[in-house]
């Protein structure tokens, strides 16, 4: 099947079951990865991916191809569901690094690299949500600034600044600056 994402979404909106199955199989990995990086828990990422495609069933006709790529639109939906999940478990402890079943570390990696990855995951999980979103969308999902802005529901300039701050916060965290987030301006709704 060589249909583009946009063609698949249009077919889904017209009630094409096969197109929905194809879109799910093609884009579930992107949605799952995003949700996993945002929440840090594989089971929650599975739930978020499920909720995203349930939303697609009802909202496929609302997709506007001139506003964002399909992946960005899907990740925008995933962002809303992931935020709700994060709000629900706001006071729960963060998962232990490396305990997530969906995150595998190459055994050939050196111990230091493995540790660095585990610490990076932990630092990412503790990043304030807007900065985490920017880092995940741009650096891990490799979305363009435009698509990341569409997914995050903000301006491109906002994505750039959040990404810049997010990277600096991550680097500071990785250097061991435990209070790296102190003093950083956060959006009003945080």
């Amino acid at each position, binding site marked *: 099947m060589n249909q583009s994402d946009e063609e698949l979404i249009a077919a889904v909106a017209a009630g094409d079951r096969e197109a929905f199955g194809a879109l799910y199989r093609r884009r579930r990995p992107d949605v799952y990865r995003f949700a996993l990086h945002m929440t840090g828990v594989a089971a929650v990422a599975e*739930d978020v991916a499920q909720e995203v495609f349930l939303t697609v069933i*009802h909202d496929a006709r609302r997709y506007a191809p001139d506003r964002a790529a399909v992946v960005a639109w899907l990740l925008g939906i995933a962002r809303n569901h992931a935020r709700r999940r994060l709000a629900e478990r706001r006071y729960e402890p963060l998962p232990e690094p490396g305990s997530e079943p969906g995150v595998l570390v190459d055994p050939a990696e050196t111990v230091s690299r493995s540790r660095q990855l585990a610490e*990076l995951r932990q630092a990412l999980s503790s990043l304030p949500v807007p900065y985490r979103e920017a880092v995940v969308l741009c650096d891990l999902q490799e979305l363009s600034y435009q698509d990341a802005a569409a997914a995050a529901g903000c301006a491109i300039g906002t994505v750039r600044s959040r990404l810049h701050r997010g990277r600096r916060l991550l680097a500071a965290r990785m250097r061991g600056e435990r209070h790296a987030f102190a003093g950083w301006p956060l959006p009003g709704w945080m």
Partner: protein
Amino acid sequence: MNEYNDNIDDIDLALALRRLAETTSVPPANPAREAALMAAFEATVRVSPRTPIVRPYWGMAGLATAAALLIVVVLSPVRAGRHGIPPAGEQASHMSLPSSSSRGVQPEPVPGEFFVVPGAATLPAMESGSLVRMDLPVSMLPSLGVTPPGGLSGVVKADLIVGQDGLPRAVRLLN
């Protein structure tokens, strides 16, 4: 944090992020979840068939026509059986609908027992849901906790009880 991160800079961070992206694996899709999604899709499409886009003025004209017809029906006592009184000497007559057998409708398949889907007990309590009839691949039955009858292949008709979260709670096969 520790001795491994003392000299991290932007390039290190970019490399580490790249490595994190590359080492994040995605488990294969759970067949039960996929089946539930497909069932939800079919149920939604069946409930809300896609309607063609109608220009607004045609909609307005349609509404006006419907309103006019409604007024005529309500104000006509002779034809409004529920609202009006039949004229003297006139008996209300009813035409019986043809029975389903006379219309050549296929007999409904006989449903079997419902089986709870594995793992359904650990799911959140079911607050609402829907009963979805669908063609299930036989190969998918074991993941739903049903042992397919011997020699069966292809697809079977089945009813799924799907909860508010889109996940199946129970399944039954139709004979």
